[in-house]
């Protein structure tokens, strides 16, 4: 359900900060508050910043971070970059995907958990690494995969 009045209020509040080049900070603020950037937010954002809707849409779709749908209840972001690969990341990815019952890059149908790729968390000497609901986890092995899976089922 789109809370258009809520979105407008959030935009108005943000506009008081008088930020230069405000589009990205505004999108971050909306995603923080609503969990995603609803496509219905595009027209009021365009109005507030005096941009075209196409420009706003172009920015939202350019950046990997911005979501246009509500996220899963839990999000596991697994690092797929080179250093984590060198420490067995591919096998961990396969196990995690199996344990969570969801393919990399997808959310589970019941909305409980999503498995997303991330390219480097800056923990490259202690991989494979992940962010489990924003909490960093290092040296992921089979036991830790099981622990992560049971944590996100709760």
């Amino acid at each position: 359900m789109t809370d258009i009045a809520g979105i407008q209020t959030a935009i108005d509040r943000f506009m008081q900060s008088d930020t230069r080049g405000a589009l990205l900070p505004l999108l971050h603020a909306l995603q923080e508050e609503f969990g995603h950037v609803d496509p219905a937010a595009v027209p009021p954002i365009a109005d507030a910043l005096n941009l075209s809707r196409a420009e706003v849409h172009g920015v939202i779709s350019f950046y990997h971070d911005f979501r246009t749908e509500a996220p899963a209840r839990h999000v596991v972001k697994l690092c797929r970059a080179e250093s984590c690969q060198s420490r067995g990341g591919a096998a961990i990815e396969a196990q995690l995907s199996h344990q969570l019952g969801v393919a990399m890059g997808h959310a589970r149908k019941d909305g409980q958990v999503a498995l997303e790729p991330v390219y480097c968390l800056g923990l490259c000497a202690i991989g494979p690494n992940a962010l489990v609901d924003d909490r960093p986890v290092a040296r992921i092995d089979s036991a830790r995969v099981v622990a992560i899976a049971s944590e996100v089922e709760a």
Partner: protein
Amino acid sequence: MTRVFISKDMASLALGADAVAQAFAEAGCEVVRTGSYGLFAIEPLVEVETDEGRVAYGPVGPDDVAAVLGGSHGARIGAIGDHPFFARQQRFTFARCGVTDPLSLADYTAHGGWKGLEAAIGLSPQDVVDAVKASGLRGRGGAGFPTGIKWQTVLDTPADEKFIVCNADEGDSGTFADRMLMEGDPYCLIEGMAIAGHAVGAGHGYIYIRSEYPFAIEAMREAIARSAGKIAPFTLEVRVGAGAYVCGEETALLDSIEGKRGQVRAKPPLPAIEGLWGKPTVINNVLSLAAVPFILAEGAQAYADVGFGRSRGTMPIQIAGNVRNGGLYEVGFGVTLGELVNEIGGGTASGRPVRAVQVGGPLGAYFPPSMFHLPFDYEAFAQAGGLIGHAGITVFDDSVDMAHMARFAMEFCAVESCGKCTPCRIGSTRGVELIDRIVAKAPRAAGALETMPQIRNASRSARSHDQEVELLRDLCDTMKHGSLCALGGFTPYPVLSALDHFPEDFGGGNALPEAAE
């Protein structure tokens, strides 16, 4: 009350430092949270304050509290500086990281903070720029362009407004120095940016941090708020990226701050002349800016005295991947790749032989152990067909499949391309397909379309394995010369180096017979 020091660096947190800190607090200790020294093999690291100074233990778990406080724990290291990992380091930029409470202004000042800024304020802008030039400091983000020259251009360009932009979009695998500095000693970066502001006449600065670094974002925001009075009239703010690798490219980063898609701008004009909002802009990496306070406080000569060839000063090198003693190692240029991997890094974590080392992130070349004599130096690496980049070293053991790594490089480029140039946008996808065919030893057969007589320039025959490899090299050449920025232009480094040094992984022989005309 016993004082203990425990890191709250993101890596330490990932290894369980919070639980350890809580256990010491429950045991009645005063816990000071610091940055990390950067040797992750001994994290979580605990230092206990004693009459003889701080005594280090690591790794320490929550159950080890009593043994550590009793001084009897088996993980006792002694003074951290005596640890072999630290013996040869020269910590100019990271001198305070691990030692101090990152957000304590009192700690920062007590450990030599603000001396550089105070010295700079007493000098004319030109004198500050001259000091940076004399230090020999080159951009630590990748290309190694002399920092002082960049600043001179901004100083010399008249404008009503100028900016300092810090590129903290550290997206390269195997690099974490920016993150560690921002989390572990944020005032050092702030001081460097304030000095830059004074040197070129800029009143405002932006720190563009990637969203994957939530703790660095939080630390920088808090540090900016607390030090506002100290750097006034200069002001700073944090901007957060949104998961686009290409925003590490300086002109894409500027567009992103302006609120646009992070697409690369053609140069010229240089950002130093027309940068953020068309104004003269200094854009430097975290490590470049964080090196500046030392240069101003200790003198340009003290910095220039260290190094190798035209690479002056120290480089915070990040040893990562499949390595035993991975971590942050700051040392003057000139240390060899082999010393870094085998002696300092202690070889692979898996215990298997080292097969390949990628230097400089996803766009850096792969080197075999036969090239371990290479000294860490911008020119030496360029000559060997590689780059130092942000000084990340990723170690792989002999289980690595180098064709897979080459494919990954192309795939990464395809996903992250900003879309502006064809060789990068399309070529990278073609590269993935080509490598797939090469490793499947299933060269491309002539399609129905190509055998039609009216299609004159299409190949009429299947391609042999060698021809497919040739085509891949050709594609790399096109990407290298036809791309606007490093993403498309440097992706050939990992691909070609994998092909050159590890041809056996790309298969050989030709499964298909040449089709008849």
